[in-house]
């Protein structure tokens, strides 16, 4: 660990006011890469604060529920693909992708009675070391991986398979959304790629720790999804290099949270008490509409951003169109000519004034 995190670690623990750090999983780690410019999120995540509990306490809970039908479908598909030592998966990799998968060892690393996460991780590590030395065909199911998030180890239990072929590991991610005529919903593919990148990174770090070249974990992952309207699995290779780059950058940022903390009140804490709202507001946010699908704090931050008239709540496009003018009031004042623009906004102001005049004319002076 770097010195930075050693310094900030006690501060981060204090921020949680004694609550245990929230467990990260690939979904939450992948979510770290959304809105990387937000200090509020950076601090809350680095400290492992339970953002959902915070938002609820503040009266802004988000309904992030999942339908049992979706869960059942996902589980059934995964069970099917993994049945009989991943028989279907192997056939798929052989036939569709033309991979020469010969003899394959299948190791299910799922939890054994009373085993701690640390012990499971150690077992994964042992088996992985052996596989790396032998370079034999191997399928690891339910490996227990670890990734340090701002100095805290986060254990990852992927529903994922690490698959070694010709001395290289590939991550296989099983998802139950359909690929119809070779196309799937782009947001779902993007989310899956972000999650898979987390596994690739965790696996690479482990491989490096074991003294091997991290490049033995391929940046190409296999996405296994139902094909068309059937339960038949299909495999699609996805290059997750862009997601990896964003993820690494963001994780590095989290370890620099100290810089952000330095500017915050020294006794700041996110305890679930009456001071919580002020504590959260003390850390600057950068709300954008996309937050609603990626961050538990979204409704709180939206309310705050709306209350101060931030143009960002209308979307990045609108903000850009307004030449970066931050508040609705300021932009309207420029458009109505009631405020003198600073020199750097002269052009934006002229454009807004013309736009206001054109709207007035077209709407017959009603605007």
């Amino acid at each position, binding site marked *: 660990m770097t010195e930075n995190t050693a310094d900030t670690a006690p501060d981060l623990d204090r921020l949680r006011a004694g609550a245990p750090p929230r467990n990260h999983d690939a979904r939450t780690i992948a979510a770290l890469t959304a809105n990387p410019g937000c200090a509020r999120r950076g601090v809350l995540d680095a400290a492992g604060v339970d953002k959902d509990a915070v938002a609820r306490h503040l009266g802004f809970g988000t309904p992030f529920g999942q339908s049992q039908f*979706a869960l059942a479908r996902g589980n059934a598909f995964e069970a099917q693909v993994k049945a009989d030592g991943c028989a279907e998966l192997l056939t798929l990799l052989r036939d569709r992708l033309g991979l020469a998968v010969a003899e394959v060892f299948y190791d299910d690393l799922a939890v054994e009675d009373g085993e701690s996460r640390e012990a499971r991780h150690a077992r994964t590590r042992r088996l992985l070391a052996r596989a790396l030395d032998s370079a034999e065909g191997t399928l690891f199911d339910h490996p227990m991986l670890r990734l340090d998030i701002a100095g805290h180890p986060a254990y990852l239990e992927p529903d994922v398979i690490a698959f070694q072929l010709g001395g290289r590991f590939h991550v296989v991610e099983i998802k139950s959304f359909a690929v119809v005529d070779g196309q799937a919903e782009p947001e779902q593919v993007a989310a899956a790629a972000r999650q898979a990148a987390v596994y690739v990174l965790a696996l690479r770090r482990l491989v490096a720790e074991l003294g091997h070249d991290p490049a033995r974990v391929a940046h190409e992952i296999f996405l296994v999804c139902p094909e068309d309207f059937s339960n038949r699995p299909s495999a699609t290779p996805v290059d997750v290099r862009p997601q990896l780059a964003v993820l690494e950058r963001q994780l590095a940022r989290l370890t620099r949270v100290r810089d952000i903390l330095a500017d915050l009140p020294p006794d700041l804490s996110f305890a679930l008490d009456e001071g919580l709202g002020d504590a959260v507001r003390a850390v600057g946010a950068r709300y954008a509409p996309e937050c609603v699908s990626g961050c538990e704090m979204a409704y709180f931050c939206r309310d705050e951003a709306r209350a101060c008239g931030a143009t960002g709540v209308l979307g990045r496009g609108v903000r850009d169109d307004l030449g970066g003018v931050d508040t609705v009031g300021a932009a309207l004042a420029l458009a109505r000519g009631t405020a003198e623009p600073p020199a750097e906004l002269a052009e934006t102001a002229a454009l807004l004034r013309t736009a206001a005049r054109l709207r007035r004319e077209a709407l017959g002076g009603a605007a």
Partner: protein
Amino acid sequence: MSVLSALARLEAVDAGRARPLATVRHCHLADAPLLMVPLRLAGEAAAPLAVLLGTDRADPALLVVPQPRNRDLRFAFAAELAKVVLEHVEASRGAAEPLGPGRDGEERVRYTGAPQILVPNGGGAAFLRLLGRSTRFRRTEGPHAVEAAVPALGRWLTWFAERRDRPGSSLLLALTDALRLHWATGQSALEDANLAALLGWIDPPAGLDGPAAAARAEDPLRCPPAGPATDPTFDNEVLAPAIAAWDASGGDPRAEARLRAALESQLVPTWDAAWHAVDLLRALPPGASVADRWERDRDAFTLFHAGFAEGVPQARRDSAVAAARRLHRLERAQEEYDARRAFDDPLVMAEYRLTGQAFAGTVAESDPTRLDESGKRPKLRPRVRIATPDPVRLEPGATVCSADRPALKGRIVESGAGDVLVELTGGLGRKLVPEPGAVPAEGDRVCFTSVVPGSFGPARFPESADTPWTHGGPPAEYVPTDSDAAEEWS
């Protein structure tokens, strides 16, 4: 997005209500459109759960799949849905009006009507496309046989979905899209995708302002989602037990009635909201070119309807040349659509005025009888000088036409701060003196633009057989296969 629409959003925030983005209606609304509110089973690509549909707002029909995982029940649902859609197609087409012989000498006709389908949002339209995709390859005989109406439904839904890609087509409309074309809210585009929230900004219920009405619309308990995705809490607490009870009862009608009632409770609020949206749109006067675009829709409908019996194949995916042609057609349609809307609506023309491709002002000087005698024969070339505060970005020589009377054409002679000199070249009559009223007089308000509807050149693409190898070479002709027909739908 543009500065103009961004400003409209700011005004909406300020006013606590949506602000207009249009002064006329830019889409066609049929007298009796078929409204469909579909729901899909969570976690599945195209497993229908229910649809509330009809042309009469007081009397919707509710179709339900009591066990959405049961293939036979799905196809029974598809057959029922097919009946409604096919009836709507036949009921809407009207008479075949003769158009006289075409270039090939064959008599052409066009139906006086066409079917229109409305859905609450883009998700609903995407779901109909997938439903079409999952039913159109079904065979009506042999193994996996289904009712004849099922593949017919699939082909019609596929056609509707493809027409929706064409800018300006009104055959399949997502109401959120239609509303957003005409109003700007004080929230983001993402939030506008919620029909109830969008309506809350445009026409909030008494006692509420836009933000309050939109906030209420975001609570799934008070305002169930408009589909096709259901509220997860509803799934877990209401739907799952109701389906389990139906299963356990062996299909008992009382259990089915309970299941239907549960689904209806989720659908009715959206049904009402959708008709509310229709009312708001209908209250706007139609733009001048709406009828033209609907005529293109009727052309496409007449063509597809006529070829339906022969079964024009609809491939799973376009070949490279077909895809490029299609893209070109769509781009062309988009340009034409944007331009025509600008001529119909001063608020859309304002977009071009803001970017300097159009300008409006008052005629300061007019020389209506000016002749150009530089050539062999004199030509009538009147000049008008227009005082305008607009930020004109048109170079000398640029051709322009009048927004109010596109036949009146001209050329920019000079353009300086606050003033533009235009030489008129067309739309003046055939003599050496202009028709009375053709040339704008001093003091007239005028608007000129370089935007010309239909200015996009014709497509130049290789014939299918000459597809370059970089694009996969000549495509094999698409023939539906047995495996298409046998495709699982589980």
